[in-house]
């Protein structure tokens, strides 16, 4: 049946061939790179948009992708230009970046570190992406940031709120525009004290993973500094969908505020359970019982529906702001897609513009040159007021919004009202703050 006859000679020959071929790649060790990783040679430059398209954060991922596409249009001089007109830096001319047309590739992170890294790697190795951006979860952001550091490309973080992204896991090639848990605490605490008094007893329910912990730590520290007492902190598994068994003990704990350190579907479920248990009508210690959700997003508010009304939280940006940058962005996003952008979309759009601007100012796509252009960069007109990209940890510092679920929403997008715009000075912290200590930026890696 089989025709090939294996002779001793034939096998030896093949064996030698196999051995030789296996040895070949060892002759070329890393000599292939010159200059920097994926230096754009042609008339275009490729950016990699790595967002969750499936899984729990797919909604946010879809909105992020819309924002990226809009940003690419604006950079290439199509559409109405959006925030390019209001941006304090005017070096971008609508002819791409450094005269090269902007192209992009997309990938699915699946909200899993592994998948996200695989997707980012394929963008870098196969498509020649010079910058990776995106992510809708801190775990993924930290993982991809680490990868970009090793590979030698710039990472512009999308929605990631954990302190660790620019804290103990910070990297020289990674940059974050979004705010973090510490800032949420610092912005929210004074408002909480003003609204609910300084002698409250808080009970925390926290999603049991890194983001939940850093947020709990931040909120506890910020509220206790203002005189609150923390009765108890309980960790809930991330996969939990019914929080009844966690809410029941709250009733008899002597607490009069419930803080939900949950995000996405988790928060929608826990808040719904809390409302079902009548926590919002309850009186405790002679005071009205209150619920606080430190990190809010409009997409979460929509999921929670009625229950979100009157609840306080913080957010990075909201489309109802009235500055010129926000108005321009909401207008061009609304014209293209028919509804206002979410905070995730905003931060991704802004990150893309900031990268393009930095490359333009640096006159190069070299990651080290771009990092240098971004470090300590002050800008304005991108929807958050005057903003600083701090050189020490690559974190943006800007005003933080404290928001409340609107009592009488006028549309399905008008769910949050801005209670207070907390000024930047109030949410700033030292780069070596204990909540952020333990990591080092290292040196920038151009991949060469």
């Amino acid at each position: 049946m089989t025709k090939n006859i294996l002779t001793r000679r034939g096998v030896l020959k093949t064996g030698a061939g196999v051995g030789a071929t296996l040895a070949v790649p060892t002759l070329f060790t890393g000599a292939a790179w010159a200059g920097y990783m994926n230096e754009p040679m042609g008339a275009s430059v490729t950016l990699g948009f790595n967002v969750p398209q499936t899984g729990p954060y797919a909604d946010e991922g879809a909105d992020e992708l819309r924002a990226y596409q809009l940003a690419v249009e604006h950079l290439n001089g199509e559409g109405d230009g959006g925030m390019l007109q209001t941006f304090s830096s005017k070096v971008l001319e609508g002819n791409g970046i450094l005269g090269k047309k902007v192209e992009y590739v997309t990938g699915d992170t699946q909200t899993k570190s592994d998948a996200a890294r695989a997707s980012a790697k394929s963008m870098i190795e196969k498509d020649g992406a010079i910058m990776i951006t995106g992510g809708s979860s801190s775990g993924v952001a930290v993982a991809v940031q680490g990868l970009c550091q090793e590979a030698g490309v710039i990472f512009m973080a999308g929605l990631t709120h954990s302190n660790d992204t620019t804290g103990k896991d910070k990297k020289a090639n990674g940059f974050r525009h979004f705010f973090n848990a510490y800032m949420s605490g610092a912005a929210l605490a004074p408002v909480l004290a003003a609204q609910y008094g300084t002698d409250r007893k808080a009970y925390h329910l926290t999603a049991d993973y890194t983001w939940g912990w850093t947020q709990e730590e931040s909120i506890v520290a910020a509220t206790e500094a203002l005189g609150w007492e923390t009765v108890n902190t309980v960790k809930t598994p991330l996969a939990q969908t019914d929080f009844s068994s966690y809410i029941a003990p709250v009733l008899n704990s002597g607490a009069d505020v419930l803080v939900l350190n949950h995000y996405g579907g988790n928060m929608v479920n826990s808040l719904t359970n809390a409302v079902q248990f009548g926590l919002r009508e309850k009186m405790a210690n002679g005071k009205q019982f209150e619920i606080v959700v430190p990190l809010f997003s409009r997409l979460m508010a929509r999921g929670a529906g009625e229950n979100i009304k009157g609840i306080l939280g913080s957010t990075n940006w909201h489309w109802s702001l009235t500055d010129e940058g926000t108005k321009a962005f909401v207008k061009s996003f609304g014209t293209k897609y028919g509804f206002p952008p979410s905070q995730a979309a905003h931060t991704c759009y802004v990150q893309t513009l900031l990268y393009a601007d930095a490359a333009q100012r640096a006159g190069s796509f070299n990651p080290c040159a771009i990092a240098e252009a971004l470090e300590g960069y002050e800008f304005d007109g991108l929807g958050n007021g005057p903003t600083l990209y701090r050189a020490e940890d690559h974190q943006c510092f800007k005003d933080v919004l404290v928001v409340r679920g609107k009592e009488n929403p006028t549309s399905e997008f008008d769910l949050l009202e801005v209670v207070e715009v907390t000024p930047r000075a109030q949410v700033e912290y030292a780069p070596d703050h204990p909540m952020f200590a333990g990591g080092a930026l290292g040196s920038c890696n151009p991949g060469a």
Partner: protein
Amino acid sequence: MLGLNKKDSTLLLIVAAMVLLAPFILNPFPADSAMAQFNAGYPDLMQRFVIFGIFAIGFNILFGLTGYLSFGHAAFLGVGSYSAVWMFKLLSMNVIPAILLAVLVSGVFALVIGFVSLRRTGIYFSILTLAFAQMSFNLAYSVLTPITNGETGLQLTLDDPRILGVSATADGGIPVTSLFGMEMRSTFTLDAGAWLFQFNTGYYFCGAVLLLAFYLAIRIFRSPFGLMLRAIKSNRTRMNYTGLNTKPYALAAFVISGMYAGLAGGLMASMDPLAGAERMQWTASGEVVLMTILGGAGTLIGPVLGAGFIKYFENIFSKINEGVLHQWFAFLPDGMENGVVWVVEHFVGPGWHLTLGLLFMLVVTFLPGGLVEGGQRIARLFRRKSTEPQDGATQSHPAE
């Protein structure tokens, strides 16, 4: 050759050739053509093909031979990754100690989990392994955070001790994984006209390990031990009645396949030094079951094919977005173009799971023996044409 019969030697040589020439085979389209989207010959994906191939080969030793369906194999993969990354953090960036520890630790895990789970068979066994895997996942995700770094995943940092190496390189970066100085990430790019071929050290290292693993699997399949495992699959009760204790054999198969998974995990961490808890999730365990069934359970080459198939879909189809589709169908009139794009986009990009699901259904329905059966049928079709008169030679043998 090497104690194999002619047929197995041929198979091994075919696999070796495929591994060696993968950078060419997987990059059939010129780099700037529209079809370049379907090229899979870049280091990361080739490494994944090979690593998941090893994982599936190991799984097949348990499932294909003994019939025990484990739903918890991802746990061993994860344990392997964590051990390897810890080795990189504590000892050195050489991949050999990391992989050895990965195999060892996952073997110990498999021994413990297998000892308990193998008290039951059938669905109860599957559920027990699933429970253990979920337990490991939850431990890694939150309880054991100091060891696993929880949701964020275990990564290398600049202040790791690395006793036999350096904590940071001279220019302040984290050192990269290597094999006695050969960096795993170094890639040689061959520029052949319109084609770009990438040869990556890490890939060839994984490829060499795959060949070893494949050879070992052939030997196990052909050994008296393998025969005993098959006997367990066909009728365990009868084996017991003949006075033979099947449990040690099943346990040995379980541990071997756990060690294969650990090897895959260790290799994964060696290519990309990160270990995340989601590697241990039950969906990851389900994936290897899919790979094995899709390729052909109980066959030697099947699992490798299945692994390649699924990884190809995950990495290539998920990246086809609306913009790309519009480019493809630009030749159609506008209204029709939008219609076609609207239909097709549900099957690519975020919808790649749907396409994979449909293909899986088709394969299981029409080719119960997996892709290997498909290959056999095609081969038989050709053979029948050329050797019509001779009968008996066309008897189908499982391509094990």
